[in-house]
């Protein structure tokens, strides 16, 4: 496909005796899921564009343990956490950015008590900071005037109180931001959290992602913006389920910024 992008690892940095400005925690979805990999690449393009000195753990990264913990397997969670903390501490990592709100929440909130204290930020917060510092320029480009609705990821929004960073980025794209009936602190889950992503739903009369997608469709958007690879999958499936994939795209905020400039 396209030419390989330059993605330095922490091991390479260490070999050169250097420390990157920030560690990009890619996460399992960002590493393996075909849809989420596009988000990862878009974010990396933005990092390059803003001349951010970053590195990834690569093959030394492992699941944060979020799905295990939320499924009730505290033992497996802590095994994962301690393994990761050992690696992160060995590299003397100070600052971590991730495009997955689940990784973000777990490392930020649940690792410190286990010996892993870092400054952890979500990629939308990081991009907003780059914008404020003038390192990243965001302009409308091809999204100017488009109707966009933003789906709040539970683990970014309610769980950690960040509702504005993704919206500020979208506003910079000069889009027409429309809110769903249930948004921000009352935003409806996409249905993937709490390890639901990895199992069939319990019997009911509807899938959660369909309920949420219908609500998003009510706002008649051109694009549903997301900030989480799992929400992205759930909403993409929902849009397909409603046979609207010809009219509505589901995109991560980072992809939108990268695509706006055709990076």
């Amino acid at each position, binding site marked *: 496909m396209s030419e*390989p*992008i330059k*993605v330095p*690892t922490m091991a390479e940095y260490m070999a050169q005796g250097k420390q990157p400005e920030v560690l990009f925690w890619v996460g*399992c979805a960002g*590493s*393996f*899921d075909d849809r989420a990999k596009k988000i990862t*690449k878009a974010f*990396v393009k933005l990092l390059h564009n803003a001349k951010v000195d970053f590195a*990834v753990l*690569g*093959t030394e*990264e*492992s*699941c944060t343990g979020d*799905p295990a*913990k*939320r*499924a*009730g*397997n*505290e*033992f497996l969670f*802590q*095994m994962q956490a301690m*393994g990761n903390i050992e690696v992160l501490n060995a590299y003397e990592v100070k600052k971590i950015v991730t495009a997955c709100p689940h990784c973000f*929440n777990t490392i*930020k*909130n*649940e690792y410190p*008590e*286990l010996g892993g204290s870092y400054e952890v930020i979500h990629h939308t917060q990081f991009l907003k900071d780059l914008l404020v510092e003038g390192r990243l320029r965001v302009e409308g480009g091809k999204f100017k005037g488009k109707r966009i609705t933003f789906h709040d990821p*539970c*683990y970014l929004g*309610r*769980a*950690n*109180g960040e509702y504005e960073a993704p919206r500020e980025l979208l506003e910079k794209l000069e889009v027409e931001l429309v809110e769903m009936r*249930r948004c921000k602190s*009352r935003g*409806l*889950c996409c*249905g993937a*959290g*709490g*390890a639901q*992503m*990895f*199992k069939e*739903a*319990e*019997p*009911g009369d*509807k*899938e*959660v992602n*369909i*309920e*949420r997608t219908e609500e998003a469709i009510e706002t008649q958007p051109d694009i549903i913006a997301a900030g989480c690879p799992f929400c992205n999958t759930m909403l993409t499936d929902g849009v397909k389920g409603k046979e609207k994939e010809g009219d509505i795209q589901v995109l991560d905020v980072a992809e939108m910024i990268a695509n706006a400039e055709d990076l």
Partner: protein
Amino acid sequence: MQYIPNILFLIALIAGIGYFTKNIRKLIRNIKLGQEVDASNHKAERWSNVVRIALGQSKMVVRPVAGLLHIIVYVGFIVINIEVLEIIIDGLFGTHRIFSGMGVVYDYLIATFEILALLVLVGVIFFWTRRNIQKIRRFWAREMKGWPKNDANYILYFEMVLMVLFLTMNAADLQLQRIGADHYTQAGMFPVSQYIVPLLEGFSESTLILIERTAWWLHILGILVFLNYLYFSKHLHIILAFPNVYFGKVVPKGKFKNLESVTNEVKLMMDPNADPFAAPAEGTEAPAKFGASDVMDLNQIQLLNAYTCTECGRCTSECPANLTGKKLSPRKIMMDTRDRLEEVGKNIKANGEFKPDGKQLLDDYILREELWACTTCNACVEACPVSIDPLSIIMDMRQYLVMEQSAAPQELNVAMTNIENNGAPWPYNQMDRLNWKNE
């Protein structure tokens, strides 16, 4: 003979407050059946939460109609209770309107009580209509059948009757003042009950006294009965909301607690210097149990949560699982916890200590199907106006299912095995984690 009313009043007061105290002690004992939990941190934030969320009702107004009605009833309840103080003094000492010496201040006080009483009456009628005529969905969910539905209505009827008695008492008093009856001091301003007075015109003094005394006695006895009804009702929230908000979660909602007993074991496993055959150190004992299958495994804050829940159903009406027809209802989690805790309390009372009754919170009250439907999205926690955390109970029970019983749904076992072996919930090799950069 003339002291008989005073003595009867004293007896009623002692009986009312005494029985209430007894039940509160029972409640505290039941809560103490839970695991101890340290909540000595974040004091400033906790007090600020009490002021904002409990006293200030900040979360109630997220839903403006119900919020406004609730604030009216809440303010009315608190302010009108000043009048109860006067009633108690009058009752004990045979005085009449003892505070009337305050003059103009008293006039405005009584006027305020009257206006609030009317507003409470209107508010309560609105509440009743929302439940019984408008049939708002959250009041008609599965778990609301029978007692919970009746309980809610009984509370509303109680409040209606108390307010009507209060206004009737004032109306009769006003008319007695107007005809210059002995003992009925000229005092107070009656902006509401003056409109009831025309109904009483033409009654003799003795009939008016009978009406006034009857309303007075029924009002105060009604308050004492209502006080004692609390323990058996969802209405306990009028007291427990305050401590419950104080003990509410003060860390980010996404932060779930890490089990310390597990940390110790994992650390030991990962320590290359640890001797695998060493006997456990003195004083370290294996935890009795991971997670929760019954109320005694939950912590004291979770049990306080259960008693505080007033079954408003805001949690359930925001729950993605419930909204899409799954069995999970966060409100039911709280109601089940309280019901089981009461059952355990009765068991202890009957047997001196808890005698296994072949039942537990898991399966006999809360079904696995409910627990596994949760997306851990925190919508229920966010929605609760009194800082109840149903999600923490769901998580503790999942821990029991997975760590004690290995009873996770099959697909989750697959995902967990993948995490264990490959460091990802899918069956990809950890060595392929960076392949995306070349694709």
